């Protein structure tokens, strides 16, 4: 169970239309990531699904049933918040048990489920601590524990990793992916970090200004972006965009080439000067000032180029994306 469908859902705050009519289908067991720049309405969309905000129009169906006017608790969804939203005066055990207590389960049943969740999340030895005594990653796990004990139809994650440091974020990313593999429950995950989206998602929904720009699998979006916005948003470092005569050669208004699809060498199409070089050992990132503007290049391994060096760049002809004047892919 856990199929969610939005039909013509809109949301207005006063006169401002945050989400214009929007249709979306989320299949059972999918890991769907909403991604977009801040202020694109992705969190609002999640809150609409959760029932924390009222829709201004349209219908939300959960497992085929109209859930538009149901209260959050009746939608059988569980949410993990950005701030974790743990109850600071309750122990970890009580935090995890809270939804079960509200559902009026027997104490024996509550204890069993809490122990089970704690075991899955490696929290067994922390059950009697307060959230204030836990580290960021542990708090995150408690928040997830509070969500999984309810056995919801779907999990909603609202930027759950943005308060963690980089190393922990990678760890928790793996843990959430593993959790999805073992529970097989629908998960909707909101983030502004396209790396999180690419690594975790079955389906990515790219949003801009409340509109869905494209829905697809991570590699689908990477290889076949529908428009300039998706092309620029997916992939790190960002795709290079070149207009003018160079684009006209490819009979396009603008062309885009990803940094990893440009070869740097002693001869090639575009001449430029290196302004910044970043040497990571495994990769080398070059920022090259050319006649067509600043171009980012990502080369495998170590390349001995430094600030001020002259370099020639060659794009891989098979990997050039072409856009028309409206920014749509040709």
């Amino acid at each position, binding site marked *: 169970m856990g199929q969610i469908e939005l039909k013509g859902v809109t949301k207005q705050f006063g006169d401002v239309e945050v989400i214009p009519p929007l249709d979306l289908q989320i299949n059972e067991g999918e890991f769907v990531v909403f991604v977009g720049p801040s202020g694109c309405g992705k969190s609002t969309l999640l809150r609409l699904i959760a029932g924390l905000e009222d829709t201004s129009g349209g219908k939300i169906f959960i497992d085929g049933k109209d859930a538009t006017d149901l209260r959050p608790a009746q939608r059988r969804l569980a949410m993990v918040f950005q701030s974790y939203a743990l109850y600071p005066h309750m122990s970890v055990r009580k935090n995890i048990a809270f*939804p079960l207590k*509200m559902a009026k389960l027997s104490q024996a049943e509550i204890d069993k489920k809490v122990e089970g969740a704690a075991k899955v999340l490696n929290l067994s030895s922390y059950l009697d601590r307060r959230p204030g005594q836990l580290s960021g990653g542990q708090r995150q796990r408690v928040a997830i524990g*509070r969500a999984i004990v309810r056995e919801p139809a779907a999990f909603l994650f609202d930027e759950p990793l943005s308060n963690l440091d980089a190393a922990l974020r990678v760890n928790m990313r793996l843990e959430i992916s593993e959790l999805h593999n073992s529970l097989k429950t629908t998960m909707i995950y909101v983030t502004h970090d396209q790396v999180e989206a690419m690594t975790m998602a079955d389906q990515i929904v790219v949003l801009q200004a409340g509109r869905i720009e494209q829905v697809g699998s991570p590699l689908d979006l990477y290889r076949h972006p529908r428009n300039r916005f998706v092309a620029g948003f997916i992939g790190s470092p960002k795709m290079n965009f070149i207009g003018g005569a160079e684009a006209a050669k490819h009979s396009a208004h603008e062309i885009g080439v990803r940094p990893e699809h440009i070869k740097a060498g002693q001869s090639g199409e575009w001449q430029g000067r290196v302004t910044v070089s970043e040497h990571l050992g495994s990769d080398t990132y070059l920022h090259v000032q050319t006649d067509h503007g600043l171009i980012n290049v990502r080369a495998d391994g170590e390349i001995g180029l430094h600030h001020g060096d002259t370099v020639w760049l060659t794009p891989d002809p098979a990997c050039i994306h072409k856009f028309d004047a409206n920014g749509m892919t040709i």
Partner: protein
Amino acid sequence: MATQASRAAGRLMISPAVILLFLWMIVPLGMTIWFSFLRYNLLIPGDNPFVGIENYQYFFTDPNFWPALWNTLTLVLGVLAITTIGGILLALLLDQPMFGQGIVRVLVIAPFFVMPTVSALVWKNMFMNPVNGLFAWIARTLGFAPFDFLSAAPLFSIILIVAWQWLPFATLILLTALQSLDSEQLEAAEMDGAGAVSRFFYIMLPHLARAATVVILIQTIFLLSVFAEILVTTNGGPGNASTNLTYLVYSQSLLQYDVGLGSAGGIVAVILANIVAIFLMRMIGKNLET
């Protein structure tokens, strides 16, 4: 304040203020303790001989002492109950989005700025007066006999007046505490299936515990020494029905010109306030720990 020299300089700089404050406290306290051991009545001129604990014996055996003690505790507990419970309810109300929120919040704090003598007089003459008072008028309009608050229920009336003064203070502190509650916690509780009542008791009330502790501690300090309201309304009467310890000390030292007995009463009041403070800290002080 890192080096020894700067620490020494720092101590030197604050010493005038500290010494002044210390003298400000210790001289009156020392003199009160000294007077409490003297036979010292302004109506009996002559020597003021040292009489040991005689004044304390008189004070404790005064027929008004135990009633005054109970009145003090009833007054404090009554006002605390009304202001904390009422303050929480008012804070919940004021936290709701509404038209003219800013003005309403300013108006709510207004009673706190009315000085105790004035507010007590207003209550006495305009509300509780059995002939001209608003309550009497309401009672007559509805066909009841007017209730003479200050003679029929003097302590209760004073509790009402004092609670009216302190309710804004409690409301304001609890309101700011309520506003500092993370809205995501409430939303999480909502997702977890907690209704409005459960959210109040499981999330909001524990969050308010610390602010409520501050309200109770501060109010207790001031409520133990309520005086003006009693003086201008009931004068401690009828009989001793509304006499609290502060008023008892006043009536013995000033009305009877007995400095020694009044000082002894003052010291008893200080000790009592400390006992109450210790009990309070034991009971609710742990709320202030992080």
